[in-house]
């Protein structure tokens, strides 16, 4: 084969044209472009927030596409082409240094996000996201609007739930400590309320509980459990002060349930994706021993003692 300039240039350009037609143009014209059942248009504020997301490179750490084998946040919704029809540019991303955000809308209330943007470690102590306080309150507000729209109609349903329970939890908080603690306990199903922590306290379990507390809880509830962690100024109702709970019938089961399931509407997230059973019991017992100063660990009814118990 004689490689003349025209053979080289003609050849490579013809190949490029043919391949672009096959792998770029054809898929673009062939896609049906119809919206999925969760699709809706974004509001002007959500679009403005999306601009901030694009300009500041959020996509380098946060994907927006859930896979069939994912477990983390958003994994109830496997990505579909119809979810993205208005995204220009699309922000699927190529790396997860932080969690996927395609269904982030409504996972947390707005105040959690604002504290998180000001400094991510306020709400998530192990986070390695850089702080965004420099965006200023207005841009943080818009960015929050965008993040709360991720997931579109599904996010809207979650936001309705957040807003409903936000109002309920604020009312309970403003009714005073006694009423608030009673309200919090009443939201836990009866069975859970009556279960003491079934495992005994040990020096080792308290150390493990403390480690979990430092990775997950300290940003809001603070190092001494008084609810004065660094996130506190941004959050309302404010983080719970554990030190006033003594004698108020806080069972191990209540602690377990609230850590597992979170308190939607407040900044208290669910931790059931992050933490397995043992870790939740142990961090609950750590809170009970150190901050409430009253634990029902290993009290009756506790069933047959597990085989590992000393």
């Amino acid at each position: 084969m004689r490689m003349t300039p025209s053979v080289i240039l003609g050849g490579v350009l013809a190949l490029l044209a043919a391949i672009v037609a096959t792998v770029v143009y054809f898929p673009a014209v062939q896609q049906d472009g119809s919206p999925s059942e969760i699709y809706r248009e974004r509001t002007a504020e959500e679009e403005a927030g999306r601009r901030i997301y694009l300009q500041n490179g959020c996509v380098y750490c946060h994907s927006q596409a859930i896979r069939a084998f994912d477990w983390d946040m958003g994994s109830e919704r496997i990505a579909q082409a119809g979810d993205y029809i208005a995204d220009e540019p699309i922000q699927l991303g190529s790396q997860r240094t932080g969690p996927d955000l395609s269904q982030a809308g409504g996972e947390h209330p707005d105040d959690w996000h604002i504290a998180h943007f000001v400094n991510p470690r306020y709400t998530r102590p192990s986070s390695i996201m850089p702080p965004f306080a420099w965006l200023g309150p207005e841009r943080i507000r818009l960015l929050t609007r965008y993040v709360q729209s991720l997931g579109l109609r599904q996010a809207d349903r979650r936001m309705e739930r957040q807003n409903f329970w936000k109002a309920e939890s604020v009312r309970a908080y403003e009714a005073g400590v006694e009423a608030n603690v009673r309200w919090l306990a009443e939201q836990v199903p009866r069975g859970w309320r009556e279960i003491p922590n079934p495992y005994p306290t040990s020096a080792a379990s308290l150390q493990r509980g403390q480690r979990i507390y430092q990775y997950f809880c300290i940003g809001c509830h603070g190092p001494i459990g008084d609810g004065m962690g660094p996130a506190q100024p941004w959050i309302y109702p404010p983080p719970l002060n554990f030190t006033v709970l003594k004698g108020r019938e806080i069972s191990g089961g209540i602690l377990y349930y609230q850590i597992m399931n979170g308190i939607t509407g407040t900044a208290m997230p669910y931790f059931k994706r992050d933490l397995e059973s043992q870790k939740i019991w142990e961090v609950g017992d750590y809170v009970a021993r150190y901050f409430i100063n009253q634990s029902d660990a290993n009290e009756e009814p506790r069933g047959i003692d597990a085989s590992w118990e000393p």
Partner: protein
Amino acid sequence: MSEAVSAVVHADRTARAFALTSALWFALATSFGMIAAGYLIAPDFLANVEYIHFGRVRPMHVNAVLFGFVTPGLLAAAFYYVPRLLRAPLFSESLGVFSALFWNVSLAAGLVGVSLGYSQGREYAELPWGADLLIIASFGLVIVNLLLTIRRRNEPILYVSIWYAAAAVVLTACTYALGNVVWKPDTGALKGIPDAILLWFYGHNVFGLLLSPLALGVAYYVLPIATRSPLYSHTLSLLGFWSLIVVYTHIGTHHLLQTPVPTWLKTISIVDSVAMVIPVMVFLINIWYTVKGKLGEIHADIGAKFVFTGTIYYFFVNLQGSMMALPDVQRITHYNNWVVGHAHIGVLGFAGVTALGGLYFILPRITGRPLFSRYLADLQYWLVLIGITGFAVVLTVVGLIQGQAWYNGETLYRTLPEIQPYYVLRLSLGLLILAGAWVGLYNVVRSLYFPPRGGVPCA
């Protein structure tokens, strides 16, 4: 060869300008990378400095590496070998120097735009629209110069390096315009899934149709000369060239295997990703047989040493790439640092190291005197080699930790404390690469502009 032809004098001002460009941007780009690596281990580091915040400095790093360091470095060698292989002077050295200046201005404008928050938010296609046009124009200037030199050549036969250089710049001018969607200035993007398909078609071809062919052109030029050996096989050159153009161009969608793109397109990308062994092994067989038994000659020429090392990385990065395109493998490797490691092996280990080899091969031949310091060049070689090899190991390990943990159902948040030590290691290894880049800049500047007094070059 007639007397007139053999008397061609090469001014090489264009090659010098691109060599300096490359050395300068290598130093800047690795500095950007170091800032980004710093954020990953200490996120409150430089916490509220908007213009170099992680999400802005990362694309500055990537674009400066691709279009500041590697491409101009490989072009410097091309502007050296193209006139020599054609036995004709470059069409216009003035145009060449202007194109290098214009190239620098275009890239700097784009990076300043990203730094100020005008990113278009598409990975590998972040630069704002105005900068996109400038970069396409830069490619245009280079194309004009190279093609008109080819037209005025005195050597009828075009050597394989010429094929690669011409194809790389012409194809990339097209894919750059296409991939950056220059006909839509406000967003620079399509809508929805087709945007992702186009983006990764383009993004992968920055490597496939720009860095790889330019680097192969340099290897095909440098290694036969350094070893004084004829090329092993013309037929393999042909097969390697055409299979590279055909196969590489199909595989961008392997970045999207876990997203809702058409299955037939995923299948094409997987099949062609595996088929990448054809162009790669054809090239490697050709070039490794060419230099067979001549490692001493390669070792003696620091430029050839870099280029040969680049071919070894080419082998690794492509074996790894073919494997990573398999869906079962990708369940573990996708979305984590494994891919970051892969990208560094390809862009720095193969293309970047080859570009450095090109620079050190041409510098003494352009200036007519030895490098300012062979010692510093060797030092840079080892700094970069240890740095990139360490990077590959650390990022692969941390990628496996992340991928396995996620696949087993651990949340991403839970893995953050586990991977922190690896980010520290990665930054430490990055320091070696950073040091290598700055040492290289010093060496290139001294070699180009400061002839030794008294005529005794530094060891």
